[in-house]
């Protein structure tokens, strides 16, 4: 029986249990006055729960151990004695036989796997039947036991609610599991990388050219300093040089000067800027901005004007960040107590003097926190640099020259045709770990700055 049909069957059993238990519980109501702790539907849910949960838990466990059981059964057959000793060959033959048995493949490289395939299919169908029977029995037994407990005095509600609470807790634990998954996967792969390349060589080496890796000394071509510089140059210097003045001034204008109507139209417009997908910005940067920047560089007489310049990627990234900076600045400006502003105006200061001397200094921690968050977002941004920045790492201060970033290199390293274990792909995870740690630090610092400042005014 196919897995989907089995799931439907069990779900149908659960539904039947729900309906029957609910009907039975509803009849209690007609009995002479008594206090009930549960509604009929609670009894229904209680029975449905006991029908579904044991069967599903069993199937989940079975699903993870069944392949090993099937393989053991195949090895135990007389044909299995002909298998080579454990190793790559044995695994290859078994996996071929499995593919043949499942109909995923039509021919086999090893003649033995063709002979094993029928045994495989037989073992698989035998175990499938066992699983189906046990699952259905569990569903039925669970449902029946639960149904016998449906009595007027039975508190089905508290049982059901306990399970619901459990579900809620599990749902919120998934966030922790994801975080652990990220940290673990990055750490494990990076640890493997640092066995090949010393961590100091990776963090402080100044030469990055993964295209030509010397197998005897892979670390010599995997020094990440040019990438860190490129990322910092594009994300923290050029992009912020665009985003901070524009975002801050937009926020000031829209909150302090603009007419209500202007504000109502311009704010959503800025938000659209934030909603444009990064791949669109990347395409725009590569197609329109980059050639313009190169022409500008040539016109200015810059020697290494590249069509994959840091400036093009940085400017477009800055534009993408404007709404982010603007909304952070907006929040912190409006958190400044009105009395400070009124006091300054009452002393005869003009609006701009009030803003520059009173509001902005008072809101500065919030603005700085917002800029830090913006930097963390900019250095983690991928598509703009993948499409508009260069793949060649260089330590340069020239914004018209080509530079590369950490995210661009991660994409380049992992979308090649290299196998999963080479120093190149592992290097991508080491870069990912670095990126993760840096963005995490930036976020933590930003949050601390913002929180401390908020406390000061509340």
């Amino acid at each position, binding site marked *: 029986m196919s897995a989907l049909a089995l799931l439907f069957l069990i779900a149908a059993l659960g539904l039947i249990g729900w309906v029957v238990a609910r009907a039975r519980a509803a009849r209690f109501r007609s009995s002479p006055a008594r206090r009930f702790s549960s509604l009929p539907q609670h009894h229904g849910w209680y029975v449905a729960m006991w029908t579904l949960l044991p069967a599903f838990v069993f199937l989940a466990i079975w699903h993870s151990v069944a392949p090993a059981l099937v393989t053991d059964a195949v090895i135990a057959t007389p044909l299995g004695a002909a298998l080579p000793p454990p190793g790559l060959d044995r695994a290859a033959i078994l996996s071929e036989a499995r593919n043949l048995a499942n109909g995923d493949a039509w021919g086999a490289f090893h003649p033995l796997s063709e002979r094993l395939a029928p045994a495989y299919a037989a073992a698989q169908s035998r175990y499938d039947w066992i699983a189906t029977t046990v699952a259905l029995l569990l569903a039925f037994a669970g449902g029946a036991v639960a149904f016998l407990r449906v009595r007027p005095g039975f508190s089905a509600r508290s049982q059901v609610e306990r399970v619901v609470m459990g579900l809620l807790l599990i749902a919120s634990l998934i966030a922790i599991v994801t975080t652990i998954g990220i940290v673990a996967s990055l750490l494990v792969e990076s640890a493997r990388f640092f066995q090949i390349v010393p961590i100091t060589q990776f963090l402080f080496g100044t030469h990055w050219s993964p295209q030509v890796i010397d197998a005897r000394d892979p670390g010599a071509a995997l020094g990440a300093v040019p990438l860190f510089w490129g990322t910092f140059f594009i994300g923290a210097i050029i992009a912020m040089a665009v985003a901070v003045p524009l975002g801050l001034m937009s926020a000031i204008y829209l909150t302090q000067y603009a007419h209500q109507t202007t504000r109502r139209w311009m704010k959503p417009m800025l938000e659209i800027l934030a909603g444009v997908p990064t*791949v669109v910005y990347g395409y725009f940067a590569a*197609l329109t901005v980059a050639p313009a920047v190169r022409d500008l560089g040539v016109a200015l007489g810059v020697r290494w004007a590249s069509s994959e310049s840091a400036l093009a990627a940085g400017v477009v990234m800055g534009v993408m960040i404007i709404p982010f900076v603007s909304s952070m600045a907006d929040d912190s400006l409006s958190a400044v107590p009105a009395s400070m502003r009124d006091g300054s105006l009452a002393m005869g200061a003009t609006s701009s003097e009030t803003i520059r001397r009173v509001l902005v200094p008072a809101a500065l921690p919030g603005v700085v926190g917002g800029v830090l968050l913006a930097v963390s977002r900019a250095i983690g941004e991928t598509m703009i640099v993948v499409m508009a920045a260069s793949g060649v790492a260089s330590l340069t201060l020239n914004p018209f020259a080509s530079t590369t970033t950490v995210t661009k290199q991660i994409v380049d390293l992992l979308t090649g045709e290299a196998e999963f274990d080479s120093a190149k792909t592992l290097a991508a995870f080491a870069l990912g770990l670095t990126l993760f740690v840096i963005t995490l630090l930036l976020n933590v610092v930003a949050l601390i700055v913002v929180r401390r400042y908020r406390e000061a005014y509340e």
Partner: protein
Amino acid sequence: MNKRAASPARQPTDWQTPAMQRRVRRRYAAERRFRAMGVAAVFVSAAFLIYLLATMIGQGASGFTETRLALPLDLRGHVVVSPAQLSGPTADLALAGAGLENAVDAAADRAFPTQGGEALLSDGAWLRVRDAIKRDPHLLSAPITLDVPVATDIDMAYKGEGNRESEAAVAALGPHLSRGLNVNFFTGADATDPTRAGIWGALKGSLLTMVVTLALAFPIGVLSALYLEEYAPRNRWTDLIEVSINNLAAVPSIIFGLLGLAVFLGTFHMPRSGAIVGGLTLALMTMPVIVIAGRNAITAVPPSIRDAARALGASPIQVVFHHVLPLALPGILTGTIIGMARALGETAPLLMIGMRAFIAAPPGRLTDPATVLPVQIFLWSDDVQTGFVEKTSAAIIVLLVVLLTMNGLAIYLRNRFETRWK
């Protein structure tokens, strides 16, 4: 008293002196400059957005049209197919087997020998003839003229962006060429020939991915928001949950791609490039967004609602699921739509898990190799053929329209259903 008397007598400022007048003028000038800077900042941001949209529309509009050539066809004797074969599912096979493609190419060679012959036609031209024949089998038994799509060079030249050679061909063909809506762009999948490439394959991949994302991220996100806001005791564990959710919301998307690569593909051996892996990865990314939006919506429900329900004898679960959740739902839905829109526009994590393959057929199942619209845009933008430039921009227009619709829906929901508590 003495002190005040000791200080020199304070005179009111005389604002009429020239020095003071100058100073006031300077201060007002500074005020105007500052204000102008603010206007300029808003203006520059808006101008950039308008320029971006105008560029995309200007380049992409022609991607929705195709150039057609009026091709005289006489298929009598060249393509022999019995009427019985033409009705039913075997028609495609029968026509292909009867040499329709060669017959169409030969017709082009006969009709336009000097202008380029069969090189004028798109790879998909004979498919158009095939579909016409399936609709009306009589076309096989009479000389006819059919509009068929032209090759990409001619297409570009007719739209005014071709090279000299193809522009000469266009000039020679003159009245035989016409323009029409490129239906294939909305129904086809990726192809190596730009005139045959369509976005339906990528759009369907996006759809399947989003279904997985929504099915996982929405329930998990809402349930954890409910737990954290309504039930969680304040202790080290719930603090840990909160911190991880807030951090996950700020983790760069490419890191989620690395997670998907290492865990879903590396450890669990899920199908590479499958929509299910993409959906799982994006779900992990979208979940924190939904949790944060959900918590804000849940806190906005006033405590008096909860107190009233408790007072009437509702259990804690009933309070939340019968009262708090329905009231918070509009806010949660708004946050969910915004999170889904972000996931729909996401590219980088999907590149990591191999959804960048060339997919020539729309995916049918969650485990089939698939690509999504933003990745398709990325792939086309990398293509060297000039015909793909307008296709890229056209695909961007479609993506932006979908995203703006989603965001508009979110804003509408917020305005329409959000209860303003006093």
